[in-house]
């Protein structure tokens, strides 16, 4: 596998996905029940997870997986549950942006952010709080 080619593709697509996710979260700030925005955040997190896992960027895969899991809850509820929850989703986005930036700047896999993973796991009242797990998908 030509890692340089896939790394470049990852950086290009992840950057686009994060911009799209950011726009969708801003839409959710205006209206927490915007179905299309909820779907976009879920889908972008899912896609980044798969790409990152393929390149063994475990920290990015873990964080995007956690964000995806949280968006499943939001999808089921049909809305983001308040400003605190939205703030945590923004923190997840910022964490991913920071990690993707590290890949771009250093060409190295970024370190994990267990505190952010735990914070996201605590988001929403209808979800259990599973320990951070290594993502393989």
């Amino acid at each position, binding site marked *: 596998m030509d890692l340089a080619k896939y790394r470049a593709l990852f950086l290009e697509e992840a950057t686009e996905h994060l911009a799209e996710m950011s726009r969708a979260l801003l839409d959710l700030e205006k209206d927490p029940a915007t179905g299309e925005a909820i779907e976009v955040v879920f889908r972008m997190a899912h896609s980044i997870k798969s790409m990152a896992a393929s390149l063994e960027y475990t920290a990015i895969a873990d964080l995007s997986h956690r964000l995806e899991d949280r968006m499943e809850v939001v999808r089921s509820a049909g809305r983001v549950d308040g400003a605190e929850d939205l703030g945590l989703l923004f923190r997840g986005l910022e964490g991913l942006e920071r990690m993707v930036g590290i890949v771009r700047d250093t060409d190295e896999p970024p370190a994990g952010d267990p505190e952010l993973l735990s914070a996201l796991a605590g988001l929403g009242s209808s979800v259990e709080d599973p320990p951070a797990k290594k993502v*393989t998908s």
Partner: protein
Amino acid sequence: MKARTLVADDASFMREMIREIIEPEGFEVVVEAGDGLDAVEAFKEHTPDIVTMDIVMPKMSGIEAVKQIVELDPGACIVMCSALGQEALVMEALKSGAKDFIVKPFKPDAVLTTLRKALEKKD
């Protein structure tokens, strides 16, 4: 003769990865699709021998695309591309007519084995 293949995934990263795995091994990617709607249209236009179908895609999900393709061609050979944790969706896709599934991140041997077996079942 190479198996004419439609690769449907919203990430060009994943489409490229599948292409790189399968093209040296008897498959030819004749068309790619970035969403479920395009996948259905591409299937109609190119009538490929086999389809790899992502589940989570914009405009139309991979599962809905499977349903529509199978309605067009009940013998269509479709292999789902899933991630861990999507077991329920994979089951729904299989019930809808998909032949098998592969799991991301892709392991080349597993991808090739699954696609070949799916084609054998079709034949």
